[in-house]
């Protein structure tokens, strides 16, 4: 029940997951203190030093504008954190509320879950593509779009979990004590959803990275001037044969980060209540 022992429980004996967690912390620090760590301004153009190979001056080389890829990668961590956290918060709050309320209030559920069903008839990236076309390319819009996509799955999952909890004996017992709807929902049901929600959050975070990178790659994600790992891959891909390292570093950063989140999510899933294991999506 206490926070530290829970964390110990999750990571004990799971070396890879622990390394993953450390990596995520590194990303977070890099994101917060990007200007300190980055040796160059990520937007500084150097037409003479284009497409340089990795060197002591430019760890990851330079891109076709001569910008320092290492500095851009560090600033890219910012976007990773912002997009990840943003879509997780959006998806969990909107999707979580829809799912929980739909399961608890059956009639409301009939309406809300039908809407979720219709949205889920669209494959995720397709829905994101269409929504991005409606909106302008921007950080906020990318978060909203990815948030909407995963709000649907979150709603579906929370619907199932709340339905299960609603049938629990301790909920009946609370009713018999005279507890009202809000007390049952927020005092008895929600606290039992926290750990599965955290696991779900980790998977959404991972999916959001891949989804955002794909949107960037297709030219429908973040505005091109923002240094994100996805944008770096997208912009430099035509130079892949001349400067393969340009794609290597941002790509590996995405992979390691997503892999780390998945590892942490998996470790959390293994240590939570077995009741909900089946409900949680993930890789």
């Amino acid at each position, binding site marked *: 029940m206490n926070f530290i022992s829970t964390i110990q429980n999750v990571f004990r004996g799971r070396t890879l997951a622990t390394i993953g967690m450390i990596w995520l912390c590194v990303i977070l620090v890099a994101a917060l203190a990007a200007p300190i760590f980055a040796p160059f301004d990520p937007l500084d153009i150097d037409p003479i030093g284009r497409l340089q190979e990795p060197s002591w001056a430019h760890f990851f080389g330079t891109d076709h504008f001569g910008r320092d890829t290492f500095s851009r990668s560090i600033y890219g961590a910012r976007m990773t954190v912002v997009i990840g956290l943003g879509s997780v918060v959006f998806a969990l709050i909107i999707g979580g509320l829809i799912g929980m309320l739909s399961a608890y209030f059956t009639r409301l559920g009939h309406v809300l879950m039908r809407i979720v069903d219709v949205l889920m008839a669209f494959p995720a990236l*397709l829905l994101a593509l269409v929504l991005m076309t409606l909106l302008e390319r921007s950080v906020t819009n990318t978060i909203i779009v990815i948030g909407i996509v995963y709000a649907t799955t979150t709603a579906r999952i929370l619907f199932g979990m709340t339905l299960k909890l609603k049938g629990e004996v301790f909920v009946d017992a609370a009713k018999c004590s005279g507890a009202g709807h809000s007390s049952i929902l927020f005092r008895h049901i929600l606290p039992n959803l926290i750990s599965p929600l955290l696991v779900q959050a980790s998977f959404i975070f991972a999916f959001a990275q*891949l989804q955002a990178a794909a949107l960037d790659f297709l*030219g429908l994600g973040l505005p091109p001037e923002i240094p994100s790992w996805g944008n770096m891959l997208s912009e430099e891909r035509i130079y*892949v044969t001349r400067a393969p390292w340009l794609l290597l570093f941002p790509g590996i950063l995405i992979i390691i980060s997503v892999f780390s989140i998945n590892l942490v999510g998996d470790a959390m899933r293994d240590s939570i209540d077995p009741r909900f294991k089946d409900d949680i999506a993930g890789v």
Partner: protein
Amino acid sequence: MLAYTFKRLLALIPTLLAASVLIFLFVHLIPGDPAAILLGDTATPEEIAELTHAMGLDRSLITQYFLWLGNVLQGDFGTSIFFRIPVLSVIADGAETSILLASMTMIWIMLIGIPIGILAATRHGSWVDQIASGGAMLFASIPTFWLGLYLILIFAVGLGWFPSSGFPSISDEGGLWNIRYLLLPSLTLAAPNAALIIRLVRASMLDVQREDHVRTARAKGLHPTKVAIRHVFRNAMISVAAAFGFTFAALISEAVVTETVFSLPGIGRLVVQSILRRDYPVIQGVILVIVCLYMIINLLVDLTYARLDPRVSLK
């Protein structure tokens, strides 16, 4: 079974209608004037107004929707602004590539995902399991387009074993051998999905392994392999089958990216290009087709599911 299928098909109609409204709204909310795009930069406002009227774009959204829906129901999805040919034939042109790509990918997924999943589950906790499930998670963490680009770089550009992009139809010169164009794309597309299936097969087999009836099977004196295949895997297939709808959705999403990376003339790339070209009739048509397809696949998944699990009654 037939009656049930029919019932389920009927039940799809409301969802499909709702989806069609959404698609229609989405496309009509996209900023930009189709008539202006169609006529190009040199067009005068009068010309644009005339075309807008001719295309029916000046009518109310509701009227436009029902006109569109009526046409769609008669098989007329409109005319592509970019290609100037019926939308349906634009989609049909991409169908061959996409269907072949999807089939090949599915084969890879099955061939890679299921055996490795079984292996990992039966050797639960061993190094085989750790490599298999760790590797699966790693592959699920790789962005599809990045994998595709590096496969091109290594196997097409570097080693020259496979063509790097495009896909001539198998009815063109080269015949069935043209399939080799799809080898790298299908592997790219299969990687994350096979990873998903590995983890799914493994997880559901481990779940089934804990069930009481497996102990009964062992108590009969069955060989462990027989128990694993006949009792554990067979039952695990139920939840694996249930997840196939999800896999298919992931496949469509990733096909959009993969076809773009490999410049394949398929439906996935058509979606992206139509969006970039603001080719509204094609966007509408192609998304409607994909949604229909996805729902039918889901229905098929449910039917298979019911066949695999006798507890589900088809009434």
